[in-house]
């Protein structure tokens, strides 16, 4: 009975994984176009997790779009290359803070012709407004109530700066920022919080500035107003109380842009990086071809089909009747991995393909070795039972070891370049699925396909 329940659970899990992992297939039948595609979080009202369960495009296989930033240094008197590097570092820092996974950011210059360009290549087109924010001077100002101005005010306020003054807080006071999803982030109505907002952490030496700003608004109780280059972009979230008589090192912000993770990340990145004092012009984006040629994705698909066919044939040749177990196990292992990749929206790049192929190859190898071992005692049911029990993972220890892998995946999220990070993450995820397979899937499936052969008993 226990195995039947386990098998039912495995069947349900495999079905869900298959439904998410299935690639989009388009075809035409009787002059009508059809498309088979996987379900998306929006179908289940879960868009807060991800917009879709799919692989994101990658520059190497699918190309992307390029934005060229022209930096005007004609009026700069000092070392132009040095100044150019400063601008480059600031925008690069903003890019890194946004947390985009797959992008190229490169610089080009010619001193003689006074050409200074920064090229940003991304797999998906970034909205023009966000590109402009990214290359804006990004001068942060935090506005607080100005008692003198309030006293002198004769007309109704028409501007956000009316009746307010600068608190003195600048970009350099911010230690770090992160995009968060928190129910305390709303402006007026607690029933309509933003899905995303910002948590800004101040440097220890700037905590006093934050306290002074909070004290300035103590009489009116109005929230602090954050502006970038004079435009109102965020305000202190209303969902919690900050005691102005105590020093705080962080503040939650409700942002005024369209409520998306990316918009908040761009805004936070500009706030927490040094401001630019040179003119940066962002040109309209152009489409860039894939690094490995226009047919790279098609070639990758053809190679995948050929490889799956070859591996299946190889397993059948090696294991004959016992091959069915390895083929099924590998199929399950692969679709669960692909499902995880799609849920996490990884980029379908060559690095992901290399990593997935590696973990699948190692998994197949392990399964072949296991079946070869079992062949030694295929006549003996007891030995087979003992082996199956000893090979599978039971108890809390394996579950704990699996849980250790999760923070490791997060550790590699932004550690190195996007492609290497993703490569290592896919490997760790592969190991994670491998362990889960040994805990949940192995015994029931193995017992079905590895029953002692009746003819062998005779």
């Amino acid at each position: 009975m226990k195995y039947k329940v386990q098998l039912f659970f495995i069947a349900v899990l495999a079905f869900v994984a298959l439904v998410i992992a299935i690639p989009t297939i388009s075809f035409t039948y009787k002059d009508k176009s059809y498309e088979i595609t996987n379900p998306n979080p929006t179908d289940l009202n879960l868009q807060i997790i991800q917009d879709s369960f799919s692989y994101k495009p990658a520059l190497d296989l699918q190309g992307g779009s390029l934005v060229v930033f022209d930096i005007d240094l004609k009026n700069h008197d000092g070392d132009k290359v040095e100044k150019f590097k400063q601008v480059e570092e600031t925008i690069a820092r903003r890019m890194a803070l946004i947390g985009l996974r797959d992008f190229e950011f490169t610089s080009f210059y010619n001193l003689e012709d006074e050409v200074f360009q920064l090229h940003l290549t991304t797999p998906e087109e970034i909205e023009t407004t966000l590109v402009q924010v990214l290359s804006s001077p990004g001068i942060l100002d935090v506005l607080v109530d100005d008692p003198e101005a309030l006293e002198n005010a004769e007309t109704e306020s028409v501007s956000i700066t009316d009746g307010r003054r600068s608190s003195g807080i600048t970009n350099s006071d911010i230690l770090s920022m992160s995009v968060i999803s928190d129910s305390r982030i709303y402006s007026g109505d607690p029933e309509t919080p933003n899905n995303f907002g910002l948590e800004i952490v101040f440097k220890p030496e700037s905590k006093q500035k934050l306290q002074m700003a909070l004290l300035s608004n103590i009489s009116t109780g109005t929230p602090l107003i954050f502006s970038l280059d004079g435009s109102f972009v965020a305000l202190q979230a209303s969902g919690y109380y900050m005691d102005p008589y105590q020093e705080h090192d962080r503040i939650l912000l409700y942002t005024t842009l369209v409520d998306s993770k990316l918009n908040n990340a761009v805004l936070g990145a500009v706030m927490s990086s040094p401001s630019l004092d040179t003119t940066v012009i962002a040109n309209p984006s152009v489409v860039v071809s894939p690094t490995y040629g226009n047919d790279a994705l098609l070639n990758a698909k053809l190679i995948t089909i050929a490889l799956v066919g070859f591996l299946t044939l190889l397993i059948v040749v090696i294991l004959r009747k016992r091959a069915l177990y390895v083929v099924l196990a590998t199929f399950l292992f692969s679709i669960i991995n692909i499902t995880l990749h799609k849920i996490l929206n990884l980029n379908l790049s060559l690095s992901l393909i290399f990593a997935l192929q590696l973990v699948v190859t190692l998994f197949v190898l392990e399964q072949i070795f296991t079946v070869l071992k079992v062949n030694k005692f295929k006549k003996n049911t007891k030995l087979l039972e003992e082996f199956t029990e000893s090979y599978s993972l039971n108890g809390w220890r394996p579950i704990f070891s699996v849980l250790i892998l999760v923070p490791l995946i997060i550790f590699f999220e932004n550690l190195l370049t996007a492609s290497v990070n993703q490569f290592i993450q896919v490997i760790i995820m592969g190991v994670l699925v491998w362990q889960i397979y040994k805990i949940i899937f192995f015994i029931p499936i193995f017992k079905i396909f590895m029953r002692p052969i009746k003819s062998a008993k005779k």
Partner: protein
Amino acid sequence: MQKNRLLKIILASLIPLLVLLGVLLFGGLNLGVDYSSSNVVTFKLTEEKEVEEVRVKIQELKKFDRIDAFDDGKYQIYYQNVTLEELSELEDDYTEKLGEITEFQVLVYNPTTLILIEGRILYALYAVTIIYLVLLAYVLRGSGISRASLVWLLVGDFMLFAMLMLATVGIINLIGFLGLSINAQIVNYALTVFVFSLFLNIIITRNLKLSTSSKLATEWIEAINSLKLSEIKYYLILGATLIAFLAIRLDLLLLIIALVFVVLYSMLIHIFLKPILVDWLLTGGKNFKLISKNKRLSKEW
């Protein structure tokens, strides 16, 4: 073991490593345009042409490292070790080969990839090393090995890990001299080859049957012998499938050299060198009283 055979194994393991290390130290890293600066020609075609056609025609003029094509007819051609003056002179040749071109510019190019991550590469390396050693210790748990022996075994594994890593970096760097400079995807393929070759050590480690008084070297050889020849054969056959996606672009097929070399080197050091190394470490370790006389470490792991 005969002294002659011992010497042969040690020399066979060290000589290729020293050669690759020498090339690395004296020749430098063959970094591609993803990681190192170069000079770039940019221009716009007035007449629409196939990217492949443009690629072939430009390659006939001068060997380049990378080409980027854009939908507005703009091209960027990256040249390493070619001066801006030399590239400026190419304008007429380009026109001759491709027809009328506009917006011809030569620029210095600097990638920011390494600037952004250079401080963190070591952290990643530490993390990967620790994960590998923890995994080996996990595999050996309950195998009967004493804690002291485990320490020396892991020290040996760490040394072999470092040797294999150097060999992988060295061979990938050497392939750079054949025209395939190190870029992001090559780094990932190098990691693929490296992890696959390390797996051999995990397979053999799982076959270890030990006791707290094990000499390790003998048991290691027994573990290798208990692996049937067919298992090594399947390891190699499945390893060969890792070349499949290199066919995505022909020049990537040069990386087959790396795959073959690193897997064979891994077999050499894990099958033949490891018992010698472990034996040497255990013998030397007896004088290291902090471990050999420690009561806690004499218990079973």
